[in-house]
């Protein structure tokens, strides 16, 4: 077995040094009647070549965005990841290190975390960010719990434009706590009045921008309404590249930002691992969940970085911790940081403008097709179409023609009749003109 260094002679010598006759003598604490003598019924070990062939065989059964015109978003976006970003995260020193518990030999990870926290705070317009959560949905749930701690209130109001999986995760995480989250009705029309739902027991209002249908909204009036009643505004962003083109939530009065960072540095990989971003105001930092990296000095007076404010965390506070989270999304965060370092301010805003330009052009082209209506007045790189027939059938027909043509809203909102003909489409810098031609032709054929 290529990963196990010992040969039989060494094993025997080690057992002798320990003073036992065989390996079984080291398992004596296992009750006799549950010890396994035979091998478990699974295949035997295989060489690299065989394993690679087997996994590649599974990969070959999938339709991939690399080889098909691709227009799917709804919380995970395909962007071009620079080659150097993926190369750098595979350096042994990053890939095979643990959480930086011994800071003297973890300054690489810690410095990158400090840069990550700073970048997230900068692009969201917030004061401070943590070292990451699992994904955007769990970040959102943690934001609601944090708002409840800060306000000492028990109820959250969820926008009907929130990604329904985020809504489900929030409600699941609150299910056995003293807190609850009331979802507004699905906001198909884009006219929900969330301010009217805020009362004196509201801990926070959770609103996504752009929303799940791709629409943008000015959060400032909602922030004012929430603050007037002593509630917090939690802003959710699931396409982080949008912040290169859109006013950041911090500039619209958000108190907490929960976001999905996959778009930068990280592939789709069928939905995970992705990258939960979490940012807030300075005054609430001690109620924040998750790890935080901070600056300090070493015994020689040199700048250095450590994990800090850990009295919020489970390994110190146990059942009184702000969250049970331990492992987060370190390496995904590093990929994000390297990608954003490569982009810089100019590149980040350029990338966002490019995405928006592509989306505007796509929307205009598709709007000209019979049986297609663009629902959105505003959008970033994703918008919703109302088709003349069931969108699920259309997506299946497009897939049969080799085009991955968006997400039928009914998949996100099963049981909602109003979702039936709605199709949510995204485009990014990776979509070519030829891809758009094929989508257009496919839609034309399916809808004729």
């Amino acid at each position, binding site marked *: *077995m290529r*990963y196990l260094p*010992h040969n039989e002679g060494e094993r025997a010598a*080690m057992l002798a040094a*320990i003073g036992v006759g065989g*390996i079984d003598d*080291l398992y004596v604490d296992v*009750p006799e009647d549950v010890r396994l003598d035979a091998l478990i*019924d699974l295949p035997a070990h295989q060489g690299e070549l065989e394993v*690679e062939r087997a*996994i590649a065989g599974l*990969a070959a*059964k*999938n339709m*991939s965005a690399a080889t098909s015109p691709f227009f*799917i978003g709804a*919380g*995970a976006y395909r962007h071009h990841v620079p080659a*150097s970003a993926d190369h750098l995260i595979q350096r*042994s020193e*990053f890939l*095979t*290190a*643990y959480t930086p518990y011994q*800071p*003297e030999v973890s*300054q690489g990870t810690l*410095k*990158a*975390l400090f840069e990550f926290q700073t970048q997230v705070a900068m692009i969201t317009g917030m004061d401070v960010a943590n070292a990451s959560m*699992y994904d955007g949905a769990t970040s959102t749930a943690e934001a609601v719990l944090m708002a409840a701690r800060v306000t000492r209130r028990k109820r959250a109001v969820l926008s009907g434009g929130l990604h329904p999986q985020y809504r489900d995760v929030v409600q*699941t995480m609150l299910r056995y706590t003293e807190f609850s989250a009331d979802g507004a009705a699905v906001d198909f029309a884009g006219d929900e009045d969330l301010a009217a739902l805020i009362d004196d027991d509201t801990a926070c209002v959770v609103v996504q921008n752009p929303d799940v249908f791709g629409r943008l*909204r000015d959060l400032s009036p909602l922030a004012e309404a929430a603050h007037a009643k002593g509630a917090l505004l939690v802003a959710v962003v699931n396409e982080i590249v949008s912040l290169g083109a*859109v*006013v950041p939530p911090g500039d619209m009065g958000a108190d907490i930002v929960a976001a999905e960072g996959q778009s930068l540095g990280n*592939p789709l990989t069928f939905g995970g*691992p*992705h990258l939960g971003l979490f940012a807030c105001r300075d005054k609430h930092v001690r109620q924040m969940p998750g*790890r935080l*990296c901070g600056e300090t000095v*070493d*015994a020689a007076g040199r700048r*250095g970085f*450590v994990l*800090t404010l850990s009295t919020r965390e*489970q390994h*110190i506070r146990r*059942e009184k*911790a702000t*969250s049970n989270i331990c492992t987060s999304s370190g*390496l995904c965060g590093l990929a994000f940081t*390297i990608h954003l370092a*490569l982009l*810089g*301010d100019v590149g980040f805003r*350029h990338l966002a403008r490019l995405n928006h*330009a592509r989306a*505007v052009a796509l929307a205009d082209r598709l709007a000209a097709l019979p049986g297609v209506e663009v629902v959105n007045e505003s959008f970033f790189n994703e918008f919703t179409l109302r088709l003349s027939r069931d969108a699920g059938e259309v997506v*299946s027909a497009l897939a049969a023609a080799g085009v991955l043509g968006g997400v039928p809203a009914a998949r996100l909102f099963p*049981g909602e009749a109003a979702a039936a003909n709605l199709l949510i489409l995204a485009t990014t810098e990776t979509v070519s003109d030829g891809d758009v031609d094929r989508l257009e032709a496919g839609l034309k054929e399916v809808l004729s």
Partner: protein
Amino acid sequence: MSQSRDKSGGLKLIEIEGGPRTHSGHRGLDHEEPLIFEQGAPESTGVDLPEVGDFTDRLGGLARQGPTGLPGLSEPEVVRHFVRISRDNHAIDMAMYPLGSCTMKHNPRLNEKVARLAGLAEVHPLQPPETAQGALELIDTLAHWLITLTGMPAVAMSPAAGAHGELCGMMCIRAALDARGESRQVVLVPESAHGTNPATAAMCGYRVEAIAADPRGRVDVAALAERLGPDVAGVMLTNPNTCGLFESDIVEIARLVHAAGGYFYCDGANFNAIMGRVRPGDLGIDCMHINLHKTFSTPHGGGGPGSGPVVLSEALAPFAPRPYVIREGDGFRLVESEHDPADDGRAFGRLKGFHGQMGMFIRALTYMMSHGADGLRQAAEDAVLNANYVRAGLEDVMSLPFPGPCMHEVLFDDASLKDTGVTTLDLAKAMIDEGVHPMTMYFPLVVHGAMLIEPTDSESKASLDEFIALMRGLMADAAAGDVDRFEGAPFHAPRRRLDETRAARQPVLRWRPPAPAEAAE
């Protein structure tokens, strides 16, 4: 000592410490690298993107007005920055990383290679399931390996890490009790448990009570039996436990918990010690999370991502969260909502966006297929062998609170450092100077000055011999009263000891531009 030439061309021995102060601030290969925010120019970038012509935006009046403040660097500058800072990290690929409870084993690069195949990395979680049959089959195959290895009937695949898996398991327990119409309030957790256990129980609305340990470092079964009752929802127990010991009464513990009407949560963080030797399903547990990033070697990446599937008993399986993969006809399908005809409405909800940590599934399955049933068992045995070899090599100079064979990690306390003036922390920092990563320190909480050493199955005998020798040397130095080399340690690391108190009292959690007056100077 090292060598240099004297004027006559011969070699002169010199002290390794010190050396001239350098003009650059660097010390040879050890570069003092500024933050990215302190480099570059705002107008620079490390990407080339196509030009965008004029168009009318449709941002609804919400176009970003100002710059972000992000620094601009070219690709070579970015690459050099991250290569330089990476060299300040200890890593498994460099030297032993015996961090107890964390299982820092070798991360095969084949796993990284196949996770990047376009047919897996470039597949969207919401593309039509008929276009993602390979992805669903991979999840189903990994699930089969996990339930076969553990002897459990079902597995929930979506949890994103160990603590997230704990939440999944405890929510299943809560949902099962709710379905029985029972409102039990207490979860029993040993004091030796990972902090995530009590934190998780609290998130499920339970009050946490500690279970006592017996003098052998195991659960005190009599005390547990005494405490069990109609108010106890369940017990959370790590096995092998955090003292590195197999809970020898675990079958009896399971029987007692079930007789009292509760459920048995097993923290599977240490499954790597027993895979192929014992099936948790034969022990009577109801659920157990498996840290794919520990036992099955998906890399830790400086703090994640992880993956924490949870195996479940028949009693808990109906309450597992959505989504889940089912076989249908010749293919596979995802059940994502209570509106799906295949769903019976008992799932407790959804734990994360999409379907689970697919990238980690790919790596873990690759690792498991590479090892096979024979190799996984051998890996468990080698992990146990290595820990016991370290135990045998050190037990005459270090203090073993619980004598006898251990599992995959060996726990020492600080009794042998008593009156030396050296603490567990000092010893850990001195290990850094010796070129290895320190063990887990001050955990578990049940022994004084805990040192938990987990060599893993990846270490060769030569590596373990070197480790034992250096630890014996340090213990001899401590016994001889050579306190300076400990209190000042580390001397040979990118940084000396860091001021953690200052970091917490005056938190600086992000870079900020220098104040304008300063910038104008």
